[in-house]
Structures are given as C-alpha cells and as structure tokens.
C-alpha cells in the first residue's frame, strides 16, 4: 500500500443512501450528580454512512467520550439520555431490550479506547478474551482448534507476526502498541458495521501511533467498516477522517468534510483551536501561539445563547441571547451567528514575536560522555550511552525520542537524582557538578529545577497554592516576610495566575493551572536551567499553547535555559534552539533546531518527522511521504550491534551498519551519527 493513498479522500459513500451505520439525532445527555442533572450533550446530530469515517474533535470536557458511549448505549451509571435518538444500523438503541442490545453489540458495534492495557482483563490470556468475540457470533465456532485458527488469522490481519506467542500471553506481558493491535483485532473480528475509536493512539509513541493509524486505515478499507473516531489531536483526525464534527461544551458547533473544515473553518472556535497548534514553521522566535481566553463553561451550565459566547471575540448581544442556528454551505455547517467572519477574528496574542533572550553564549550546562548503566541481576542495561551536549544561557535544548530512548533517565542524571557512570562529566556554569544532588553545592542545586508532565505528583495535594510557592521561595530563594510576599505576587502574575488562586488547593485547579503552579515553583529560586519533562503532553491544545507561551516569556525575561523533553516534535520545535534526537540512550543527531528540522536528517529523525500528523494550514500543503518504522524499540539490555538503529532503519546500508557503530560527524555545528554520507541523507521536501 502506498502511504500517500491515505491522504486521498476515500471514495464518497454510494449515492443511493443506504441506512447509516450510526445516526444520532438531537441527542441530549445528562449526568446526574447529587440529584441535579448536568447537561453534557446539547442536542447533537450527525450520521455516519456505511464505510465512512467520522471524526469528533474537541478539548477535554466537551463531551466527546460521552457521545461515543451514548452511541453504544454504554453511558456510566449516572448518565441518561434525556432527548433525541441514537440509531445503529437502523435500530433505535432506546427501543431495544437487553437481549437485542447484546446481539447488536456482539455483531454490529465495537469500541477501542485509549488505554489498551486497562481495556483487557489482566487475569485472562489474550486467546480467552479474543475467543469470546467469536463465541458470540451467530455461527459460533465451537471447537477450540477452530477458535484458535480464527484468532490467529485475525492477529495476522493486524500484522502481528507471532500470533501464537501473543495468544498465550497475558496483557501485562505485551507492549502498549501490541495491546492496541490486539484490541483492534478483537474489535474487527466480528466485522462490525460501526467501530468507535476513542483516543486510540493518545497513549502511544509517535512512531507506534503512526503504525496503528496506518493499520486502522488499511483495515477500514478491507472491512468497509464505518468509523467514529474521537480525538483531541487535530492532526490525527485530519489523517483518518472523511468528515469531522467539532464539539464544544456539548454542542456540535461545526461539521463538514475534513479538508474543507480545517482549511476554511466557519466557526470561531475551530479557528481558534487551529491557531493554538505549534505546527511546523512556528517557533518562539517568530510568533506567539494563539490561545483561547477564558474557560470551558462548567458542565450543566445554563447557556441561553451561543455556547462559545464567553470566549469569543466576535460575540455581540445576539450571541449571548439567541442560540445560533445552523448555517449550511453544501455539506459544511456551522452554528454561529457570524460564521462568515469566523476567520477574521483578531489574534488574541499579538503577532509581535516574543523578545528573544539575549544569548550571552555562556555555557550554563555541559554534559560530556554521560552514561548510565543499571545492573539488573547479572546483566547491564545501558540506559544512556555517551551523551554529550552543551546548553547556552537563555537557550532551549529540545530532547526527542520514543519511550525507552533514555530521555527521562538523562533528565534524572542532570538533576542528580541518579548517579552517572564513572567518566561522565556534568558541568554547571563551567564548574563540575557531583553526580548526586546531595553532593552538589547549594547554588548548583538551586540552579537546576524541573517541571514534570504530571503536576499532581509534584504538588502536595493538601497545601494551598500560596503555601506551595511560598515554601519554594523560602527554601530556594531564602526569602521571608514582606519580600517573600512581594516575590510571590510577582511570580503568580508571571505565570498568569490571579490572587484568587492563592487560597486554592491543587485539586480545585485544572491541569493547566496546576502546571502553572508547578512552573512558578520551579522558577522560585531564579534557576539558571529548568528541565521540562513533557510538561504539556497531558494538556489540551489551547492550554498547551498558553503554557508554551508562558515558558517562552519566562525564558525571555529571566534568561533561563531549558532542557525540553517531549515526544511531540511540533512542541519541541516551537521552543527549542537546539535539538537532540535520542535512540536507545544514544544521540543520533544534535544540532540547531532549524537544521535538524530541515535536514539533512539522520534516518531515525526523518522517520520521526514524517510520523507527525499535521493539520492543514494555508502555508503547509506539502505532502510528505510517511516512513514507517516497524517493530518496537529494542531492549536496552541487549542493544543491537553496530548502529543501534539498524534493526529498524529503513535506509540501512548493509553489513557495515550491523558491525560498525557510526562515528558522529559534525558539519556546521550539526552532528549526525550515520554511515550514509551527509549529502545523501534525507531533507525536508
């Protein structure tokens, strides 16, 4: 299969309108909490033709998953349909009795959700769980051998090469990507007319995500199954769906063919959402990311007019009083009074680039041949091998790689949470730093702070924001009394929190606000370097945009340097001046962000770059051919000989790659470790 085929629209559904695979009409869903109905879906309508793929996008809390669960009549115990109807393959769900609903689930609908590890029963083998699907079909295969053969065929179809091993395994023995394949195989085994995918790749690495998405696209054509695809990732939706619906606060605000909707949005919310993305080409030096001001209305809020009115720049009186009707141009519909002006709205952020930090060229952090070996029994695990880099004042070093690449171990080594192997050198501002944080000087400890992916783990839940930041100020900056209060206020404002938030505790704050508190805390002692470990990967795009802007602003103001770790290349690109690409604990490529993105690339970087799903925008219409990496990252217990990437490298030269480790070669400050000569390496088209 050619990978470009994926971008072409799949043949439109046959004209002779057959019964839709899913038809949702005017659906109202409420959750009952403490005797009160909270409306989560407000009269949404859409239908999916057989074989069509429909995407629902929106940020968390907008009702996407509720819509998916309603489509399967599987709402949580406190969820109720209060109006409208759901029809699957012509059958109205509400009118089915328990047996008929079971038949429908056994034969017509399947669902795949985000965390494959939790979707499978931990105490049954894969075979047992998969066999159940076949046992429920109209003509059950009774004999165990038949069942096994059926399961094996299905696993082969999802490109699992050792089905026997997988069938006998328990879920915890398989990798995330493998589990998601198993789930997809289970979901497709019944050849359903509707497959609901709820964030199926959100928990996966970029290259694995690309592989799973390919698989779904291929299988969809083979099985001609209709797909309801739910994601917060616009890039993924763009790649996978024929049509898309944008959900906001339980309302479907815009629907239309994917390409058209993303290129020419007819609703201000869609427009805003697109502008939040750190798409390639955007960087902190050129423009601030756009954000969406304000917050999602709370569930159950009574909204007399447009659901987006509180956050919309175009809102006027009518928007606040009258729900906007649907405006339709051909197949593209928008619920906005001023839909013609959707793309005209001013940017919330000024176009003026963020003032760049004045790089003094002082090196604040230098690592030379940093290695870390863990002893596991008698074997050694080389988590990080010979990593060298330098970080200048006010600069960001982005570190990318899949899980298992050693990113987090490296962060922990730099912080002194782990002792590096002998021979590794870490220098802070030119002074050698001890391997263990406790052995570093106070100044060195203060100079280096971290912001984690999950602020919950870093923030004590029982303390107020004031206490959390105040204590950091006392401990790291040695402040007390009035100076501390003054600095606290300053810091709070710098991370765009208000005094109102000071008395709150972490659980009262949203993910984005908690991350701001964590950032404020990290900045309390005026650190020279802040290590950001996936700080935005748990956040919605609009919140992510705000956090990235904040980090860029703080960097410009305080001249702080960042080590920015992420699996999201767009995010890394936005904030980084230099980028290092890690694979199995080794640096494959390191250089100025521009050069790493434009090429020539290391084959691994090239594959990573081609696996980012990017939504359309005016400037980006190039079609990149996707390079697929097969298999999982090898175990660091037993790394491949020669070039560690050779087991998955699409451009492997031959035996030399298996026997000889390529020496890093530096041209114009851009270092690549590969046997392929520089002028033959891939470049961005």
């Amino acid at each position, binding site marked *: 299969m050619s990978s470009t085929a994926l971008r072409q629209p799949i043949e439109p559904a046959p004209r002779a309108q057959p019964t839709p695979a899913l038809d949702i009409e005017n659906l109202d869903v409420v959750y009952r909490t403490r005797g009160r109905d909270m409306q989560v879906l407000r009269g949404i309508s859409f239908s999916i033709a057989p074989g069509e793929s429909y995407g629902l996008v929106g940020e968390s809390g907008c009702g996407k998953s509720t819509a998916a669960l309603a489509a399967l009549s*599987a709402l949580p115990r406190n969820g109720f349909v209060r109006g409208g109807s759901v029809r699957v393959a012509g059958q109205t769900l509400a009118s089915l009795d328990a047996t008929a609903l079971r*038949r429908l689930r*056994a034969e017509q609908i399947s669902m795949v959700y985000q965390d494959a590890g939790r*979707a*499978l*029963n*931990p105490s049954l*083998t894969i075979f047992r769980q998969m066999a159940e699907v076949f046992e429920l079909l109209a003509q059950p295969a009774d004999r165990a051998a038949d069942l096994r053969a059926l399961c094996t065929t299905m696993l082969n179809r999802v490109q699992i090469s050792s089905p026997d091993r997988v069938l006998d395994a328990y879920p915890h023995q398989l990798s995330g990507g493998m589990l998601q394949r198993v789930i997809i195989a*289970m979901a497709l085994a019944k050849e359903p007319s509707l497959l609901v995918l709820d964030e199926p790749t959100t928990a996966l690495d970029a290259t694995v995500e690309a592989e799973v998405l390919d698989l779904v696209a291929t299988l969809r054509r083979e099985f001609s199954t209709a797909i309801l695809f739910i994601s917060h990732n616009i890039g993924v939706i763009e790649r996978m769906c024929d049509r898309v619906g944008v959900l906001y606060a339980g309302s479907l605000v815009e629907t239309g063919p994917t390409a058209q909707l993303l290129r020419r949005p007819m609703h201000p919310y869609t427009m805003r959402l697109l502008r939040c993305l750190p798409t390639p080409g955007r960087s902190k030096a050129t423009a601030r990311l756009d954000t969406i001001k304000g917050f999602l209305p709370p569930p159950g809020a009574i909204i007399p007019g447009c659901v987006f009115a509180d956050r919309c720049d175009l809102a006027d009186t009518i928007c606040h009083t009258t729900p906007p009707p649907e405006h339709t141009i051909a197949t593209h519909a928008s619920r906005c009074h001023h839909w013609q002006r959707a793309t005209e709205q001013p940017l919330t952020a000024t176009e003026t680039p963020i003032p760049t930090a004045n790089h003094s060229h002082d090196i604040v952090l230098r690592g030379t041949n940093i290695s870390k070996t863990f002893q596991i029994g008698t074997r050694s695990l080389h988590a990080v091998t010979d990593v060298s880099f330098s970080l200048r004042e006010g600069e960001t070093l982005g570190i990318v790689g899949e899980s298992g690449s050693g990113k987090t171990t490296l962060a922990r080594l730099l912080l002194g949470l782990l002792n590096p192997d002998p021979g590794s050198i870490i220098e802070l501002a030119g002074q050698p730093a001890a391997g263990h944080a406790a052995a570093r000087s106070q100044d060195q400890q203060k100079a280096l702070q971290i912001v984690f992916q999950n602020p919950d783990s870093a923030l004590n839940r029982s303390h107020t924001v004031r206490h959390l930041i105040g204590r950091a100020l006392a401990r790291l900056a040695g402040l007390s009394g009035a100076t501390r209060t003054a600095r606290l206020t300053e810091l709070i404002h710098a991370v765009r929190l208000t005094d109102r938030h000071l008395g709150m505790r972490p659980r009262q704050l949203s993910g984005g606000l908690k991350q701001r508190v964590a950032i404020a805390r990290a900045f309390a002692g005026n650190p020279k370097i802040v290590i950001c470990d996936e700080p935005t990967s748990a956040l919605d795009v609009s919140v992510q945009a705000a956090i990235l802007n904040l980090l860029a602003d703080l960097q410009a103001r305080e001249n702080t340097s960042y080590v920015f770790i992420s699996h999201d290349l767009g995010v890394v690109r936005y904030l980084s001046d230099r980028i290092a690409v890690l694979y199995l604990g080794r640096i494959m490529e390191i250089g100025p962000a521009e050069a790493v993105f434009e090429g020539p690339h290391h084959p691994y970087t090239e594959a990573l770059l081609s696996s980012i799903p990017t939504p359309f925008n005016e400037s980006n219409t190039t079609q990149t051919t996707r390079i697929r990496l097969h298999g999982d990252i090898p175990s660091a217990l037993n790394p491949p000989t020669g070039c560690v990437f050779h087991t998955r490298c699409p451009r492997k030269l031959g035996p030399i790659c298996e026997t000889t480790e390529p020496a890093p070669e530096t041209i114009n400050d851009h270092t690549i470790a590969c046997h392929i000569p520089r002028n033959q390496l891939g470049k961005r088209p």
Partner: protein
Amino acid sequence: MRARLIPMLAQRLGLALVTLLLLSMVVFAGAQLLPGNVGRAILGPLADPVAVAALNHKLGTDLPVPEQYWIWISHFVTGNMGISYTYRTPVAPFVIAALLNSLKLAAVAFVIVVPLSIAGGVYAAMHARTWIDKTISIAGLSMTVIPEFVSSIILILILGIWLRWLPITATAPRHADVLDQIDHLILPALPLVFILFGYIARMARAGTIDALDADYTRTATLKGLPPGVVIRRHVLRNALLPTITVVATQVGYLVGGLVIVETLFRYQGIGSLILTAARAKDFPMLEGGILTIGIVYVLVTMLADIALVMLNPRLRDGGR
C-alpha cells in the same frame, strides 16, 4: 512462567520456616523462661526446696537455656511435644485432638461465612449506593463490632433456648454421625460467622466495585456477553483476589475468637486447651498448643499466598 513459580514457592517456604523458628523461640521464652523456677511455680511457694530441685531436674529445667530449647524443639519436630505437667502423659495427643475439634468448628464457620459474605459483598457492589447495599454494609459492620460473648449469649438464648432450633452444647454425644456433629457446631460457629462476615463482605464489595468500573469490564459488556458471564468471568475473577488474602488473614483472628467461643460452649478445642493449660501452668501443653496454632496459621497464609499468585498472572511472572 512455571520456571519462576518454583523459586517463588521455595522462597515462601523458607520464609514460613523462619517465621516458625522465631515463633518457637518466643513461645519457649514466654512459657519456660518467664516463670523462672518452673519447679517452684508448679509446687507452690511453700514446697520443700529439695522437692523443687528434684522436680526441676526431672523436668530438665535446670539445664542451660539453649540446651533446653534444643531438646524441646528437636523433640517437637518429631511430634514429641513433651509430657503434660497436669496429666503426666504426652502432650501431643491432647493437642492433636483439640486441634481437630477446632478445625471442625472453624471449617463449619468458614463454610457458612465465605459463600455468604462473598455473595453479600458482590450483591451489595452490584447495587452500590442503593438501600440493598446500605443494608448489607450496615448489617455487616454491626455484626463485626458485637463481641463474640455477647452474640454467643444472644444466639444461645434465641436459637437454642427459645426457638430450640439448635443444640446448645457444641460437643455431640458419642457415636453421633457427621450430620449430627455438624448440627451441634452450627450454633458455636455463628458468632465467628458474625465477626468474619463484615470483614470479608467489605473486601468483596470493594473489589467488585473496582472491577465493575474497570475498563476491561466495559470491554466485556460491549462485546455483547450476557451479564452473568461478564460477572463470573471478568468481574469476580479480579474482584475476589484481594478477598482471598483477607480470608486467610482472618485465620489469625479465628484463634482468638475460638478461645472465647470454645470456652462459652465448653468445647474441647485448641483454644480452650491453651486456656486450661495456661491456668494450670502446664507449660509443655501451652507451648505445644501455641506452636501448633502458629504452624496452622503460617501454613494457611502460605497457601493463600500461593493461591493468589496462581490466580494472578501478573504476580506469577514475578512482576508487581
């Protein structure tokens, strides 16, 4: 997988042996050393010192402590628990008979309580937060907090004396058949059931609620499996794992509970044996009884551990 199971079993077994060794030392120290002069303790403060010394010599309590311990423990492992001070005959037959009696009583209690409390807990979980759930939970909790002697007396009054449904003595007449024996044991078992029901039902309820809300249960439901199969195959299997451990740890409680119940019902179990031995300062009997209970306790806990590991593939692989 199998390959990892064996070292694990060996490890558990080793741990159990160490535990028992330590227990034996503590028991020995408690029973034989604390009273100091055993001969004096037995014969009383007014006895002739010569007679005391003679008795001490005869009992071996004038030997150095490690030697005494060694003699005792090396005999113990061969099944020789020493000679009872009270009856002047070997201890072992008494202990074994009493243990068997206690096990019968415990077995009756468990046979009643385990299915009942698990069913109750699961049923409560399936109707979580309804009046059914609340009734079961509150009933379980109240039964747990009533002390055994109170519930025993109430039960004797209601079931034994007023309604006359059950015999009030625990020991069946000689040559009674099995059913008759069981019949006599139900009433004494009930106070134990009362106490245990609350604990086990609460664990079963919590485990079931977790499993019901788990994604894999939703997967099973969305496969179109009938609710019965979802519950049996997907929910219960995962829900009851933690419950097994609770059941096993309750064996420890049972020992204490048995002492009270056996005394109240005049039942010749190991609990009343220990109590009598302690009152009579019959140290070999006391040590034999306690160490036997220890062995039973360690054995049951180990079996529960193994069952847990066998049922949970994640633990079976040695992971966590």
